[in-house]
């Protein structure tokens, strides 16, 4: 008897767990494969448990790189990216990534360390009010107040981040909560009475849209990233084909519909193609599926789709009618809505003339660049990369001119091959995001297309691709300038190039070499031709410093405040 009692006692003792144990168990339960994290005082209890964990931990060389990597991972895998940062400076270093993920609806679970519960509010060492800082840029945030809450909070966080309109959720973990030992708590139910995303479309609205399509003379579909988040590209294709409706993409939606499909018009917006922007201007029925009518897409709202009946399918009701008055609102998951629309099997519109008009626009006003002058054109580089990778690569970009050229010239035929920072336009995003993309799809050819400016915001992550031997191909379109800024100064500020030229640069090749990574300077098409096949198919990381024409601009272009029909630079 006595012996037995002693036994049970030691048993309960070994069963007692710490907050950090509970946290890692909760992550395992969510099948987390990789964590992007950076240690520090407040998260030491968690790091001690990570030492024995089977989950892959990736150490970025700056927390911002870590969270961007998690974004790239989320975009390609469709699963939430998981991040850990320590309290104070670690936590504030991830702010840009949270804002970026919030804007582009990427699911993230971000753990921040916090000072011990007893000293919160006392300006303790490395204390920052991360809940206050991140409330406007997270879908939701938590501070764990009691160890028993950990399993439920983590479960809720994954649910919130990955359902409805996805987004980042932050969990602030005070150090004492992570290190405290407790009995394993009872299973707590998810308790979110205020959160019930609508997935199923309203049948009446589906009927309304079906009838509007049958009556339309000039219909278009505008497909945004909502199609990708809902994994609905097959349904989009089926619906567009069934109804013969031409498709336009937003910047973030690229790949949702195959670029080589006869019904594909192209990307619309500030640097979109003529046919797409005119298609939006002239259409009589605009079916927006999972796009949020961002100002870079619509141009001046007073001139946007002036003759169109607007239908808008969005999982976030607040997006419907926010910027553009909408006649047919459909709150739903894009996949569910498209499935129902396909089922309706409505009478396709009679719109032969419209299709011909669009084809005429496409023929007459394609993207163009000067192929006569010598020197390496950035557009040519993107075309070569496209053909040498068979259009199958995952293209991750930074922000600037190179981003627009990648969007224009790398024609995506498949979904989830495109990662870019759209809503926030975050320089420094591209290279780290490519790390996450490569981890999500280890066999893919991943191109990190960066500018010479933006790459210098995340250079330190070279250490990560070396350490993990990730075969990321870094493509720098080096124009010795903050090119997009230079372009605006040329056009809108009388070529007064205030602080936009950056002729003093490191040797990017030597920089790569310093990290043990091969690099090449490429100055001409011939040089590119000679080397690309080899390096693009290698399983090693490589850096390619393309010295492109420094004076090249992105066209067509819509000046701020102008309507979509007021494009400049549509013809040579």
């Amino acid at each position, binding site marked *: 008897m006595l012996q037995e009692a002693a036994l049970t006692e030691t048993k309960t003792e070994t069963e007692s767990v710490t907050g950090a144990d509970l946290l890692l168990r909760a992550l395992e339960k969510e099948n987390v494969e990789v964590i992007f994290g950076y240690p520090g005082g407040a998260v030491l209890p968690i790091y001690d448990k990570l030492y024995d964990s089977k989950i892959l931990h990736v150490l970025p060389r700056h927390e911002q790189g870590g969270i961007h990597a998690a974004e790239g991972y989320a975009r390609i895998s469709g699963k939430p990216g998981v991040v850990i940062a320590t309290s104070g400076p670690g936590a504030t270093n991830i702010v840009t990534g949270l804002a970026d993920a919030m804007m582009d609806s990427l699911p993230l679970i971000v753990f921040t360390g916090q000072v011990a519960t007893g000293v919160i509010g006392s300006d303790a060492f490395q204390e920052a009010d991360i809940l*206050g800082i991140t*409330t406007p840029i997270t879908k*939701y945030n938590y501070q764990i107040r009691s160890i028993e809450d950990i399993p439920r909070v983590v479960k809720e966080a994954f649910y919130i981040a990955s359902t409805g309109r996805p987004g980042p959720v932050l969990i602030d973990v005070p150090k004492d909560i992570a290190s405290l030992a407790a009995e394993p708590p009872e299973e707590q139910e998810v308790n979110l*009475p*205020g959160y019930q995303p609508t997935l199923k479309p309203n049948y009446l609205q589906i009927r309304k849209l079906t009838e509007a399509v049958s009556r339309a003379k000039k219909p278009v579909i505008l497909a945004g990233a909502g199609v990708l988040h809902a994994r609905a590209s097959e349904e989009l294709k089926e619906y567009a084909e069934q109804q013969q409706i031409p498709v336009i993409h937003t910047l973030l939606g690229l790949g949702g519909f195959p670029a080589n499909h006869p019904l594909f018009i192209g990307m619309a917006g500030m640097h979109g193609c003529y046919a797409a922007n005119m298609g939006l201007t002239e259409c009589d029925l605009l079916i927006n599926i999972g796009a949020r009518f961002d100002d870079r897409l619509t141009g001046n709202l007073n001139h946007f789709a002036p003759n169109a009946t607007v239908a808008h399918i969005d999982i976030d009701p*607040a997006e419907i*009618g926010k910027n553009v008055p909408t006649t047919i609102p459909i709150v739903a998951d894009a996949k569910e809505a498209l499935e129902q629309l396909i089922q309706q099997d409505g009478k396709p519109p009679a719109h032969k003339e419209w299709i011909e008009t669009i084809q005429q626009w496409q023929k007459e006003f394609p993207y163009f660049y000067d192929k006569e002058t010598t020197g390496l054109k950035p557009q040519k580089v993107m075309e070569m990369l496209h053909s040498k990778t068979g259009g199958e690569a995952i293209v991750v970009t930074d922000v600037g001119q190179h981003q627009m050229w990648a969007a224009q010239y790398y024609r995506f035929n498949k979904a989830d091959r495109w990662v870019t920072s759209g809503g926030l336009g975050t320089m420094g995003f591209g290279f780290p995001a490519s790390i996450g993309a490569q981890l999500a799809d280890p066999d893919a050819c991943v191109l990190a297309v960066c500018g010479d400016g933006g790459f210098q915001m995340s250079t330190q992550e070279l250490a990560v691709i070396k350490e993990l031997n990730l075969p990321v191909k870094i493509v720098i379109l080096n124009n010795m300038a903050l090119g997009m800024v230079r372009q605006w100064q040329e056009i809108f500020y009388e070529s007064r190039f205030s602080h936009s030229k950056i002729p003093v640069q490191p040797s990017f090749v030597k920089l790569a070499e310093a990290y043990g990574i091969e690099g090449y300077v490429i100055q001409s098409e011939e040089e590119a031709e000679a080397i690309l096949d080899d390096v693009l198919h290698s399983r090693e990381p490589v850096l390619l410093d393309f010295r492109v024409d420094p004076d090249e601009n992105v066209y067509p272009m819509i000046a701020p405040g102008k309507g979509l029909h007021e494009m400049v630079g549509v013809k040579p």
Partner: protein
Amino acid sequence: MKRVICLTVMNRPGVLNRITNLFSKRNFNIESISVGLSEHEGMSRITCVVHVEDDRASEQITKQLNKQIDVIKVTDITDQSIVARELALIKVQAVPYTRNEIYSLIEPFRASVIDVSKDSMTIQITGESDKVEAFIDLIKPYGIKELARTGTTAFPRGTQRSSQQQKSYSIV
């Protein structure tokens, strides 16, 4: 235009911060906000009075509030038949020869005197904001020393007149 919006929210740490944060993030102009417990345990009730340009803006406010995870219910009750009350405490200068005059103002407004000192008195008034406003205007000439207002709290009347239709938004 002025809108009165009622919220039922989960009574969780930081919830008021989330709401006020949303107003500033979305550039909504807020006139008053009042918070307190509701009839349901664990839930609070918030009444906001906001100024918006048009129906579209008020629809945006409602939808953005609804999107908040901690918000259970949002209703714009402006166009319903409602009971709305605000409470104000006013400390006004009162010397012996003005005291009676002030009392004569208090009566028709059904306000009450809740504290008196040598040279001042404190008046409590409840009612719709307009009434409170009018009373303050009347009292002002005597010299207001301190003023505290709670902001409007409101809900729909038990019976709605049938002529008054609920606002219908494009999304139901």
